[in-house]
Structure formats: C-alpha cells, structure tokens
C-alpha cells in the first residue's frame, strides 16, 4: 500500500514538473521569439559565469578547510623506514600539484567569468604564441623530471636486494586468509615447498625431503622485529592476492606460481604506536589489496611489532610444524629422519609409533 502511495506521489510530482516545464517553455516562446536572435547567448549567460566563480571559491574553500581540519583522520601514521621516504615524496608531490591545481583552477574560472559574452566586445584573434607554448612545455617537463628522479631513487632503494641478515618470513595468500611461515630458530632458513604436496594439514605444501623444513613453524599472527630488516617472501595458493600493510606502506601481490618479495624495516613497536595514536587498542593489520573473491574484504591478519629481544623470545616459544604434526615424519626420507626428530624437537614417545607407516612410504622411494 505504502509503495503504491509513494509511486503515485512520484508520478504526480513528475507530472507537475512536466507541466511547469511546458508552461515556461510556451511563455518563453511567446515572449522572445524575435528578440532571441542568437541561439547561444541568453539571459542565463551571466548567471552561469557567476556560478563558475561561486563554484571555484566554494570548492577550493571546502578543499582547504577539510584538508587542514581533518588532516589526522586521513593521514595514517607511518611505521617503516621507507614509508617515511615515500610519505615525504607524497607530500612534496602534493605541494607541487596543489599549487599547480589551485593556480590553473583560479585562472580558468576567472577567465570564464571575466570573458563572458558582451555584445559590444569582440574576442581577441589569438591563434598561437610559440614562446608561451614552449614555456609551458618545458616548465612541467623540468618539474616532472625532478619528481621522477626523486621517485626513482626511492624506488631503487626500496626494491634493492635485501641484506643477508634480513629476517625472512613467508606469507601465503589463499581464499580468504593469510598464513605465515617462519624459518624456525634452528636453521633460520625456510624449507622448500611444492603446491602438489598441499593437503588439509600440510597447508604450506612443505617438502619434507628438505631438512630446512623441519623446524619451520606456522603463526597465526605476523610478528615483526623493530628496527631489523624484514624480507617478506610472498606467494599465493589459488588466485591473486596482495599483501597490504597500510602502516608500513607495503604492498606486493601474491601470485600463484611466481613468488614475490618485499623488504622493509619496521620502526615502531605496537606499544609505541598505541602511545603515538593515543589508542590503547591500536593494532597493526595486514589486508588483501587485490580482488580475490567473495571474502576479499575480510582477509585480515593481525600484525605485532616487538623489540628484537621480545621477538626472538616469541619465536623460541613457537613449536615447529613437524612437531605439531608428527604423523608427517613418515614423509621424511629415512636417512633424514633422525635430523628431523632433533630439529623439530619431537618427543621420543611420539616417534615410537612411526616405523610401520614409515616403511610403507619408504617402499615407494
């Protein structure tokens, strides 16, 4: 019933609008068919000219007002070394472009107002001026060249190879969650993987014939050491994802079949960030920035930045994946099994149950 009434109301309103339109156009027709010799110039001309001026003043006013009063709400705090550089570049570019934008806008809308049609005036026949054109080709070119070179320097530093001491952490994207793999404290190296070895439990696709895999562990949070270079090794299992750490100014796609990487140095611990933002519940987050399906908007992974000592302590407490899943010892080649048991720290009583299963898999080798 209500929809019907609303519908009728809308129809009525449209009908009235149409009648008004018809009336005014008929009146207009009767009034000035002779006077209006020029189709293009009407009494609305000065109004439109003035409106452009109003729009320019109002628009620029709103722009500056909002940009200054809400600065903190749209400017996320930065917590990485290269993030500080790119933020600086961003604001330099902002300075340059806002000046250009404001000047050109003002000039353009003042021209539209000032040079509005007047019957007694004739426009200036001014087809070209090579000096002017040359000037505004060269000046933007120089400004852009400066921006390009500062940008290039930052880009080259950001994408340069990571150092040997970098903390290597693997991030794996899948619909619709991230998993994290740490290289483990014994060898500090990530073990090999193969997507064909992925199953319900071995979600990394760990290749257990590689002894570096034995102490790798899985984490449900991304822990990062403050002040130390971190190298994220990024891959995806199913479709494209993108590792996006907004506070660290990090973004890199996760591509199935093509591992990618990104290195950076976190500069503020979670605690320090809580103080800086004045928000006791502040947490770093990892998001997905490449459309990946229904749950794209929900691929959140909590991120914790700690002092190096706390970070090492946290790492030491984690249990290797193999220790949590001792059944998979059977996938370890016999000659490496001893190493695996020691590296993963698997208790003796768990190992006792294994040999039977182990020999069957051995047969296939």
């Amino acid at each position, binding site marked *: 019933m209500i929809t019907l009434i609303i519908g009728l109301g809308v129809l009525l309103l449209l009908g009235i609008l149409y009648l008004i339109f018809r009336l005014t156009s008929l009146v207009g027709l009767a009034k000035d068919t002779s006077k209006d010799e020029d189709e293009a110039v009407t009494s609305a001309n000065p109004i439109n000219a003035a409106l452009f001026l109003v729009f320019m003043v109002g628009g620029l006013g709103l722009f500056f007002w909002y940009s200054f009063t809400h600065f903190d709400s749209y400017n996320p705090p930065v917590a990485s070394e290269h993030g500080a550089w790119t933020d600086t570049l961003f604001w330099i570019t902002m300075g340059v472009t806002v000046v250009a934008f404001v000047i050109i806008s003002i000039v353009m809308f003042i021209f539209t107002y000032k040079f509005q049609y007047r019957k007694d005036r004739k*426009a200036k026949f001014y087809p070209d001026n090579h000096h002017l054109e040359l000037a505004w080709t060269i000046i933007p070119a120089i400004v852009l060249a400066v921006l390009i070179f500062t940008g290039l320097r930052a880009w080259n530093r950001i994408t340069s190879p990571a150092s040997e001491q970098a903390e290597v952490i693997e991030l794996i994207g899948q619909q619709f969650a991230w998993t994290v793999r740490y290289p483990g404290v014994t060898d500090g190296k990530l073990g090999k993987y193969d997507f064909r070895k992925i199953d319900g439990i071995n979600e990394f696709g760990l290749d257990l014939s590689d002894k570096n895999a034995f102490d790798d562990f899985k984490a449900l949070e991304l822990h990062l050491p403050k002040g130390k270079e971190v190298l994220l090794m990024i891959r995806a299992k199913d479709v494209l994802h993108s590792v996006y750490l907004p506070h660290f100014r990090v973004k890199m796609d996760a591509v199935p079949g093509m591992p990618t990487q990104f290195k950076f140095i976190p500069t503020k611990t979670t605690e320090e960030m809580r103080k800086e933002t004045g928000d006791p519940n502040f947490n770093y987050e990892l998001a997905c920035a490449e459309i990946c*399906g229904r749950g794209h908007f929900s691929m959140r992974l909590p991120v914790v930045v700690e002092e190096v000592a706390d970070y090492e302590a946290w790492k030491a407490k984690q249990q290797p994946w193999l220790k949590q899943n001792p059944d998979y010892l059977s996938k370890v080649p016999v000659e490496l099994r001893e190493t695996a048991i020691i590296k993963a720290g698997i208790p003796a009583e768990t190992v006792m149950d294994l040999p039977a299963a182990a020999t069957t898999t051995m047969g296939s080798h």
Partner: protein
Amino acid sequence: MATTDIHAAQHVHSHDEHGHDEHHAGNFWTKYIFSEDHKVIAKQYLITGMLWALLGGILSVIFRLQLGFPDMDVSWLRPVLGGWITDDGKIDAEFYLALVTMHGTIMVFFVLTAGLSGTFSNFLIPLQIGARDMASGFMNMLSYWFFFASSVVMFSSLFLSTGPAAGGWTIYPPLSALPQAIQGSGLGMTLWLVAMALFIVSTLLGGINYITTVINLRTRGMSFSRLPLTIWAFFFTAIVGLLSFPVLFAAALLLIFDRSFGTSFYLSDIFIGGEALPNVGGSPILFQHLFWFLGHPEVYIVLLPALGITSEIIATNSRKPIFGYKAMVGSMLFIAILSFVVWAHHMFVTGMNPFLGSIFMLLTLIIAVPSAVKIFNYVTTLWQGNIRFTPAMLFSIGMVSFFLTGGITGIFLGNSAIDIQLHDTYFVVAHFHLVMGSASFFGMLAGIYHWFPKMFGRMMDRRLGYIHFWITFVGVYLVFFPMHYIGIAGFPRRYYSFTNFDAFSGFTDLNQLVSIAAIITLGAQFIFLFNFVYSIFRGKLAPANPWKSNTLEWTTPRFPQHGNWPGEIPAVYRWPYDYSKPGAKEDFIPQHIPYSETPESNLPHENELIKLETDQASGHAQGTPRPAH
C-alpha cells in the same frame, strides 16, 4: 602542405554525381535498422550507449548503497535482484563484486568507447570532412550490429543464476579462469569473453572505416592541416584502437583456452577446492601485460574523442581560434604514441621486475607534459574570449576541470615509489573516475548538446541543460573528490565492507556523502534523458547554424538525407577556427568561405592563396591549393 592532400579526382566526382539522387527511398528496415547511413548508425550507437550508461549508473548506485549505508535493509530491491539480496536484507558479497565488475566493463567499453567514439566518429567524420558517407557504409553497419550482438550477450549475462563476471573489469586470472574461485567465473565469464570478442570486432570494423574515411574522403581543400580537432582526435583514437584492441582479443582468446581447453597460459601452481590443478608454467602476470597493453591505450581511446569534442566546442563558444592548433594536434599525437609504452604503471606492485617499474615510471610521467600543454591551451583559448555558456560549453569547461583535477593525481600514481601505498586504494578510484570517466562522460554530454541540432534538426531545452549541468558537475565532484581522502587513508577498493579492519573503520560520513551525491547525480541524468527524448519530437526547430560555427556539418540542410549535401559537397578554403578575425564582418568565417570573399580580414599569406581558389572551386586541381601546373 600540398603533399598531404592527395585526393582521387575521379572518386570525388563519382561521389558528387550520384549525390543528387542519393536518398534512395528505402523502407523502415533499411532506413532505421539496417541503415548504412553514418548518421543513423551514429544515433544507433548513441541510443544504445545511453541505455548502457543508465544501466551502468544504476549498478553503481546499488553498490554505493552498500558502501554508504552498510546497515541499510535493501529487501525492497528483492523484486529486481531476487536471490542476490541475502536473507537479512543485504546485498550478497559476491554480487557486490559482480556489480563493480559490470559497472566498470559497461562504462569503459560500452559507454565511453562505443557510445562516445561510435557516436561522434560516425556522425562527425563524414560531416566535418565533407564526405557523403563512410568509406564503407556496409562495414559501418556491421560494426554497429557486432556491437549490438555484443551488448545482447553482455546484457544476458546479468540474468544468469551464477551471476555475471565478478572478477573486476580487468578480469585478472586465475580468479577469472576458475569457476571454483568465484561463481561469476562460470558462464558469466564465458559470456563476458564472448561479448568482448564481438565488441573488439565491432571496434576494429569501425576503426578501419574511420581511418580510411579521414585519409581518403576529405572534400576539396580539406587538407590535414585544416581538419577540425574533433577529426584529429577521432583519427588518432581509431589508430590507437586498431593497434591495441587485437592484443586484448589475443589475451581473451588465451583465457578462453585456459578456461575451456585445459591450457596453462596464465595458470600455474594452483591449489584450490582441496586439489592441486595440473596447470604448470603459466603466468598470471602475462595476462596483466596483455590486458594493460590494451587497457592503457583504452584510457586514451576514451579520452581523446572527449578532448577533440571539447576543443571544438570551447573554440566555438569562446568565439576564438583554439589556442595552439598545432600544439593541440601534436600533443594528441604524442599522447597517442606514449599511450602504448606506459601500460606497466598499472603493475608496479605485481611482482614485475623493479627495473621495468622505473622505466615505466619515467615514460608515464612524460605523458603528463602533453596533457599539461592541452590544459594550458584550453585556458588560453578562454582568455580574451567572448564566452557564450551554452549547455555544451558548460560541459566542456567541466570536462577541462575534471581533466585537470583527475590528471594531476596521476603524477602521484605514476611515481612507483608513491604508488606502493596508493595502488588499489580509493585514490586510484578517484583519479581515473575524474580523469577518464567523468571527463570523457562530460565530453560525450557536451557533444550531444552541441550536435543535437544537427542530429535531430531540433534544439534541446537550454534551461534543463543548465540544471542538468550544475547538478551533475557539483555532484561528480562530491562523489569523487572525497575519495582522495579515503584513498590517502589507505582504504582498498573493491571492498564489500570496511568493518573487518580497524585501519579502515573511519570515514562513514564521507562514504555516506559520496553515496548521496551519487544518487542525486544519477537522478539529474533523468532530466537530461527527458530533455533528449522530448526535444527529438517537440524541440524548437534548429536554425541552420545555431552556434555560428565554422565547420562543414552546419552547411547541410536541417534534416540531411543519406549523402548529407543535396547538391555538390562544399569545398574548403580555410582552417576551422577563423573566429573573431580582425576586420571580418561577423565573428566567424565558415570553412567553405573562400578568401576571395573576405578581403577585409585576410592575413597577408592568405591573400596569396586566393588565386589558387578558382582552380579549386572548379574541381580541376583536385581540391588542393597547389602551385600552377
């Protein structure tokens, strides 16, 4: 100059001769449906494009409801959207992605490529260069009907139970290749690919025609240096399209193979739905390279016609020659060339070699130079003008404003170091919606207002045009300007909801503002639609040259028949921008007025051309000012 005006004399003649009885009677079908008349085909493109624009706009408002009012109960949409509204009255998350995908596809390809280029290249090229029709009327007709078939296929995909394509308008595999990853990658994606293949055929048929027509069918005296900027823009657009669309065709074909025939061009190392797929060795990045090899030129395919149209309209309504005609042509040429070597700036953080990133950053920022030149030239054209604010002029000025606002943020995104943070955030959404979406859309609207009198022989209502402009202009800014802030704050695009992240929990106010502005802006388009339809039938009859413009289309009758000019095609003697020439009686001198008739306003070198004009008028010199034999 002379070398560029090679005309086949016989060709021109034969055209003239059968020009007199050109308007063959024809029945309803050959006149309005399977017409080979470029003007009818242009209107077909226009009306199809407008229907698509309406649909694309409505889709965007639906997903803006979700973004602006995430708690709103939208059960009232269930009669239309059915199962896509969840039981608790929300838009389904996967359907949200389908909406975003189809909005992008429709707007970029069906509205701003077919609707814009298809309409105005078809309509204006023969009329402005002085030709009876396109080089091949039949191919031109085919071009429209391929587009129509493509439209039917794409439209029907909206009604599938699994929904239309939902992997983003860029359809990156593996998401677009695997139905198990998202429903829309089932039949919806197949139809998307088929529709795009048909679309590309249509674009190529059209493009070949535009290029051939511009090169071969110019009237006597219409040298390249006398072409209106509209024609230059359409000409470059057609060339860019001809070179880049086939690459998308190849990319789509390989994707079809991957999807249906088990190849591995784009797929490798995939574990999905509990099983490892057999595909090994493909590269998803390969698709991105192929896609953006079209995708970036596509931006200029969309934008260049709008730049051409607005150049023409701004010159006409400022009553001034366009400032720096050669620089305008040169910068369009430069943009067209550079558009082929900047594609990978869409891929800075895809894992592409960082060295490539630096090369593409360099090339990308260079393209800002010709764009800046264009803006400066527009502004200088306004300077000391005598500006008449017709609705077309208002939209053209709006277009320049969007081109500036949106273009300038490209300097951020083209810088790979800054792009790391901004990539795939709302900053990008704001950037391209202003610089390519809204700017081109305004170019299209400006074109419709300006050439409506020639298309339909009647005038559109001015006042409705003013209202339409001001609501749309302010509305578009209110929609897209706040997105810059949301983007700087880091909000990723294509997010169904921001509630899962602390970092993206703010800006509900701005998101609401954007959504409300979007609804109002869409509403204002109905004013335009009413004006358009009403004026076709009831508008005031148009005078011969309502805008006092110089170009040739205004020398045709009010309702030009097939063949455009009832008699001989007028010859051209001057460039199209002789506005407010010192000494002239009027403030415009159309292109078909010889210098011999305007001794009072001729420049010294123009007086020398007079003696060549007699040759030209009699048709002996094949239309070219050329030294005596």
